């Protein structure tokens, strides 16, 4: 589990991270979303005890990043922004080196290395010098390094930024798998689709402050309104009009073949709405959620903050 309380970092007069609070439970993914220089990497570095907070504290599995840096690092797997692998080593030696640094013995790390290399499609090139690896391969190897010691907490900085779509899918699946294994994960990304797919919560960070920390659905609801559902129909009774007064459901637009509703609690209320429509003789052929992008919500948050600051 990760818990940050009033976490702050100043570099001389520059405030890189400004009193941020968040909590990531086991089996949860928190996505830190923000522009370049927002304070994401500084936050990750504070969570690994590399950078000492100016104020506040954070705990990793109960260990303070200020008072127990060694324990913190033992419990964290980090994928850094710069992977900087040792060019003249091969994948097996590289992972073995880090496995030993994390105190794993040969019997433990040997099968683990093979398993991770296979999982990320690097097994065939395990003997190749790392200097010959492509950017995506390096990123996958760096991720394998972060997972070597089965850390309960993972801090992943741009895990798929240099990957082709297939590799990115592989890594996302791995992250989902890790979440299901009860790891607490913080993920920094600019990729909004990835954020939406993986995040249990999204924290939008801008100028060192967390502007919003919510689930993707909550974020979209707060920023671009409630969930919208579109109902397409082929036939409706003559001069039909929607008159039902279902709680939490509001008709927002209507034309000859479509109806758009704003629904507060879609899982509960959508079936009721459909029953009502069909009951009134509307021939429904499709009912789908209107796609409200996370991008819209994100840009809305950032622009609101910029306006507020200016």
């Amino acid at each position, binding site marked *: 589990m990760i818990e940050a309380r009033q976490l702050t970092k100043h570099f001389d007069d520059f405030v890189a991270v400004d009193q941020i609070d968040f909590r990531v439970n086991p089996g949860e993914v928190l996505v830190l979303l923000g522009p370049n220089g927002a304070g994401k990497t500084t936050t990750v*570095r504070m969570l*690994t*005890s*590399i*950078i*000492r907070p100016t104020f506040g504290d954070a705990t990793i599995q109960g260990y303070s990043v200020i008072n127990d840096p*060694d324990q913190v*690092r*033992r419990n*964290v797997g*980090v994928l*850094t*922004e*710069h*992977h*900087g*692998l*040792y060019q*003249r*080593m091969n994948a097996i030696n590289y992972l073995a*080196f*880090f496995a*030993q*640094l*994390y*105190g794993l013995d040969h019997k433990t790390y040997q099968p683990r290395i093979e398993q991770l290399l296979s999982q990320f499609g690097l097994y065939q090139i395990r003997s190749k010098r790392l200097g010959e690896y492509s950017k995506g391969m390096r990123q996958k190897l*760096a991720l394998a*390094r972060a997972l070597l010691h089965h850390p309960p907490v993972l801090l992943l900085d741009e895990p798929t930024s240099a990957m082709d779509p297939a590799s990115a899918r592989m890594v996302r699946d791995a992250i989902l798998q890790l979440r299901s294994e009860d790891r607490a994960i913080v993920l920094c990304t600019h990729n909004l689709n990835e954020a939406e797919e993986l995040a249990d919560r999204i924290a939008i960070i801008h100028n060192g402050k967390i502007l919003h920390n919510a689930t993707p659905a909550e974020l979209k609801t707060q920023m671009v309104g409630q969930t919208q559902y579109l109902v397409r129909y082929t036939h409706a009774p003559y001069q039909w009009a929607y008159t039902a007064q279902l709680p939490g459901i509001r008709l927002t637009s209507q034309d000859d073949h479509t109806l758009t509703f704003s629904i507060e609690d879609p899982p509960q209320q959508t079936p009721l709405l459909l029953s009502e429509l069909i009951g009134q003789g509307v021939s429904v052929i499709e009912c789908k959620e209107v796609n409200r992008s996370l991008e819209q919500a994100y840009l809305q948050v950032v622009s609101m903050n910029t306006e507020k600051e200016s």
Partner: protein
Amino acid sequence: MAALHNSFNHVKAEIWPAWLITRREVKDQFRDWRVVFPIVFLTAFFPYLMNYAVRQMLNFVEQYGAVIVAERLIPLLLMIVGFFPISISLVISLDTFVGEKERGSIEPLLDSPLKDWQLYFGKMLASTVPPLVGSFLGMSVYLIGLILQKIPLPETSTIVMVFVLTIVQAIMMVSGAVVVSAQATSVRAANLLASFIIIPSAFLIQIEAFIMFWGKNVNDLWWMVVALLVLSYMLIRVGISHFAREKLLGREIDILNLKWIWQTFWRSFKGNTAGLFSWYRQEVFPALKKMRYGIVIALIFSAAGLAIGWRMVSVFSFPVEVSSLDELNENLRSIVELTYLSKASVALIILQNIRAILIAGFLGSISFGVAGIAPALVTFAAVGYLFNGLISSGIPAGYLLALILPHGILELPALLLATAATLHAVAVLLAPSKQKGIGEVWIESIAVWFKITLGICMPLFVLAAFIEAFITPQLVLWLYQ
């Protein structure tokens, strides 16, 4: 037995991660032909060249019966053969942290559960071992060459001393270079800063060559070994104390920021005080309290100086012939009449004292405080020598006390405090400070030195100079007329 076994396992577990770093880096170095080639060259070819030089030199000097020149040259060349490969250690160690930072591979290491000292020590060892192996091989090839050419070998103790000196020099150079590497912002900056290691090392080699070639006893170089070990310890201590993971990942740019330097100095010198009294109360006196260990050390060395000076009378006979107290008084009166009763003499005394403490400060700053003790040691040794010499000549101790105490009671403590301030400034530099860069701490240590020197020593020196010029001689003449 079980406790011993546990202790051994504990030590092994602590050292193991450092060893992992060393092992990986040494393997990596031996995969790089740019490191391997010069080591092989300096191991195999260079000693052969030196053997040839010795042979030619022997043949040449034998014609003129100056075999001693060649005899001295043999251990000197052994030292040179050993030194060349260890110079490579400088290149490796300068790159060790800042190079990894530039290649982006340092962060995974910093994220790992390595302790600071394990990472630091592992990297230091990795920079030291390959060049030292090359150095030992080179010296062995050189010695085997001498045997094959039937050239007499130096004495065993000299060979051992040269091997030990080579090890210590390598440790000193590497520890200095690793400090630079851990603090520099780029490889370029580290390379530019290398002159701070290369120039002292070059001087060192010249001093060693001088002692080896012209010195009475080659074994005097053991003192050099001890001094280099102390210096290496200090460098390693500074390196580990100021090793900060955060700074390694910083994006600072190298610029000479005079404003920042002045602000840092002034902040540390002045503190948050508004006037002179509050400055003394909040800054000077607390600093004085903090340097109590420095005062104790300065006292110990001053007492040692006094004792050494006292004993020196039996080694070097006292040069002044004093037949009577009247003669001494006459000399004193003539001195008083000639120079002392002038304002210029006060200025001269003050200047002399300022020069002494500046020398102490300078020597202290380049030797981690070790040489900063020298002025106090020498002054107290002179006092001891003078005292014993004059007492042995029949001059009453009271006369001598009257000659020294009135101003000495201020001047000698001021000198002690100036020495203690130098030691304290070094202690500030050696104290762990993860949040500040080494440059910042260095400026702060200078500010501490100035605080004590200007706040306490200078007023005492000024007062002592007036007493020395106007009161002491008159008092002596009045007491012993």
